[in-house]
């Protein structure tokens, strides 16, 4: 093996450690039989046990799942339509409008959405959070779908029409199946973005409805307890399952 190769491996290892060591530490300490994240005392499930008895935490988790599911679903439909339109027609305004929320600082989104909801006289809660999440998720789905659209040869849809498919049949039988990896990737991205969003949610949540990130934040304000480690570990597992599932169902979906 050459010197260069060894150096490359070392750098790669360093990068992986940087990325995954903190996560690994969180997982390890979630099983640590000690209130302090300082030294390993012994193995325990008690933090998980405690977590599942924490009603506030459970309701926050339920809220997060509901919000993420609904906003990912709605954003996926709207984002897919936007992505297809952006590819198909030479639109000037739509791409900017759809993609701006991605580039916009979260804090700005949060404040402006809050002002908007107040102006509409809307009470803040699950619905306002969901609407806010849909807003910033659409752009990500649209991007993913648009990228996938450019990879689909135009002659395929033309061939379908040519061979007797109506525009709707062509969409159902050709475009949608070929677009699926992009849509799934977009939906997955939307779900993950929604479930871990803090800044925007913080502004539009109002009182009384909390999501997982808000709940964790309020707990961390006091101290990083092993309970926080436990809930973080569970979140990680959920994400991992989602990613694995997607990769299984649609090989190549995560490549884009």
């Amino acid at each position, binding site marked *: 093996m050459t010197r260069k190769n060894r150096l490359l491996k070392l750098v790669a290892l360093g990068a992986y450690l940087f990325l995954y060591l903190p996560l690994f530490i969180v997982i390890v300490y979630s099983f640590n039989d000690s209130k302090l994240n300082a030294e390993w005392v012994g193995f325990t499930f008690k933090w998980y046990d405690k977590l599942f008895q924490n009603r506030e935490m459970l309701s926050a988790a339920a809220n997060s799942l509901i919000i993420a599911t609904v906003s990912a679903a709605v954003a996926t439909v709207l984002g897919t339509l936007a992505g297809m339109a952006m590819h198909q027609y030479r639109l000037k305004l739509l791409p900017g409008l759809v993609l701006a929320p991605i580039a916009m600082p979260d804090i700005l989104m949060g404040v402006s959405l809050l002002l908007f909801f107040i102006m509409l006289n809307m009470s803040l809660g699950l619905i306002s959070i969901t609407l806010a999440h849909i807003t910033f998720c659409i752009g990500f789905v649209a991007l993913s779908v648009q990228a996938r659209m450019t990879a689909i*040869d135009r*002659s*395929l849809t*033309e*061939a*379908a*029409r*040519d*061979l*007797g*498919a*109506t525009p709707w*049949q062509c969409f159902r*039988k*050709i475009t949608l*199946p*070929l677009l699926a990896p992009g849509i799934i990737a977009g939906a997955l991205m939307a779900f993950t973005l929604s479930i871990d969003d803090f800044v925007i949610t913080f502004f539009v949540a109002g009182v009384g409805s909390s999501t997982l990130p808000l709940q964790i934040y309020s707990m961390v304000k006091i101290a990083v307890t092993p309970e926080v480690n436990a809930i973080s570990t569970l979140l990680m597992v959920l994400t991992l399952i989602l990613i694995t599932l997607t990769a299984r169902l649609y090989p190549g979906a995560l490549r884009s």
Partner: protein
Amino acid sequence: MLEIKEVSRYFDNFTALDKVSLNIAAGEFFTLLGPSGCGKTTLLRLIAGFDQPDNGDILLDGKSIIATPPERRPLHTIFQNYALFPHMTVTENIAFPLRMVGCTQAEINRRVAEALEDVSLPDKGNHYPDALSGGQKQRIAIARALVNRPRLLLLDEPLSALDAKLREQMQLELIKLQKEIGITFVYVTHDQGEALALSHRVAVMNRGTIAQVDEPSRLYGFPNSRFVADFIGQCNLLSGKVTQLQDNRAQVELEGLGPVQTAIPADSTIAVGRNCTLTLRPEKIHISSRVSHDEVEAHFKGIVHDMLYLGDVTVYKVELANGMLLEALLANSSPGRARFFEIGDQVEVAWHYDAGHLVMD
């Protein structure tokens, strides 16, 4: 059968088609030939229905089809890249047009099996297009396009992605197929050799207009313009001016060479004083070391400037007195070892007065 009437298509400021009119007969193998950007693919897309003309009409069996969406036109297209659906097996691909018209499963099974048999790929039904070679994809695309028996098949440079050997084989298969099923083929290509080899008739297109529509042999032998002569095969183009008309012969003053006699082509707009081009195929030029005094021939002295030995023939480029390079072919058909002129040799080039074809500029 297919009638194209003064069809125009503009893209922004670019005129892709300018009042193009064509008549294509039932059962014909018709080719649209031209350099890239000449409008041939645009015309094909208008016939298929992927695009709409800005002016003019397209009639199929006397009825206008421009308002008919592509799925309801009784014609199918073979795309340059085959356009097989990558998420469907070969069987599903071929079944697609049958499903769209609502055939029963039994009927679909039977006809797909038949179609696979017809293209000699009976055991590829469960493969995905990715697993096929270029030639196999080509055959499946043809099977899919023909499975529900269209009236017309449009082919958009279908052989351009294949290597030379396979291309020749597919050309023969296409000719055979078209003869067997008797469907009208409209074929688009930029390859003039392919057009000549395959077609009953060829429309040569240039900058959105039709330059000439004719049978391959007439296109080659009697081009109607400098452009067609130059585009179809190799051709020497000698500029000149008509100086005299007598009986069926014209005298042309060739630039820098002097007067030559040449036949007056049928229905020509020839007149004394007009600028013209004498088009002269390389194989019609004699090249020899002797000096001829034949009255029916035009002859000029020259020096061999370049030669290209191609096996069956040798191509000579002969430099004439005016510095012009004339291309001449010498078939290596005499028995025994082939004999050559060498570069730098003094030679004489000559052609019969009937060998050249005169076109007006």
